[in-house]
């Protein structure tokens, strides 16, 4: 039995378990993305606002 065949047989078992994991991992990445955009674009903290000022205006994020 070659190395490639062993790998192939292992891979065929992956999708079932991998599918659930993919959903959770994708949602986690999306939540992280929203958190980053939220802090850079929407935080009311003055220092963050001032640092990201031109980006907020250039992205048409609401800016005070």
């Amino acid at each position, binding site marked *: 039995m070659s190395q*490639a065949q062993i*790998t*192939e047989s292992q*891979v065929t078992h992956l999708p079932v378990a*991998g*599918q659930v*994991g*993919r*959903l959770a*991992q*994708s*949602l*986690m*990445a*999306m939540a*992280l*993305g*929203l*958190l*980053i*955009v939220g802090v*850079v*674009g*929407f935080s*009311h903290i*003055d*220092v963050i*606002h*001032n*640092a*990201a*000022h*031109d*980006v907020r*205006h*250039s*992205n*048409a*994020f*609401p*800016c*005070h």
Partner: protein
Amino acid sequence: MSTFRAIVFSSVVAGFIVGLVVTAAQQFGTVPLILKAEVYEKAAEHRHDAAAAPQIILVHDHAEQAPGAQAWEPRDGLERNLYTAGANILTAIGFALLLGGFLSLRSGATGVRPSWHEGLMWGLAGFAVFTIAPALGLPPELPGVPVAPLLSRQIWWVIAVAATAAGLGLIVFRRSIPAAIAGVVLIMLPHLIGAPELEHIETNVPSSLSHQFVVAVTVTSLIFWSLLGSLTSAAFAWFDRPASTIRA
């Protein structure tokens, strides 16, 4: 955690490139207009200090702060542009993580790895959801233009984005007539409610400058989203490739 890692790696790669490209594009598009508008804003602030305070909220009005309590801000020139580049890169990484999540869910459902072209379509959806839809009610604003209170605008912005995303999702993925109608209604809803706005707007910022700014924001955002969609997708397809194709 291989999927999460693939999304994060591809987002960081795409976010860095797009953040830098968009920072360069903004130096020609939006930033010169912001700097011009700030001249009007500062002139208005001086008059504002001299005269009795009118009851409008000026963009960046720091009058409510105690004198000397001004928060840190980057110095004009290189420092300010470096922070802009950093914030652009972070914003691009953030949106790329969102796109990467959708691309990963789609490829998990269809079994086909996403192409750069599919990513471009997702990027254009991002452009519709995050730029066009909220900008219909809250057009891109230059500094120095009076606006409604910040929190109410942020809430409306989030509602417009969520409704447009959900509406487009219903139309694209539910291929039925009731879902399509519900999707269109959902997209229209925030605009029927209406974005928060002031009844009376008085500003010295010329309307031609504001108009140029709307165009500049829209064009630079189009560059941002089309590039981010394509690159995130191409990078994700590479980082998420099956283990059997990776050579040891």
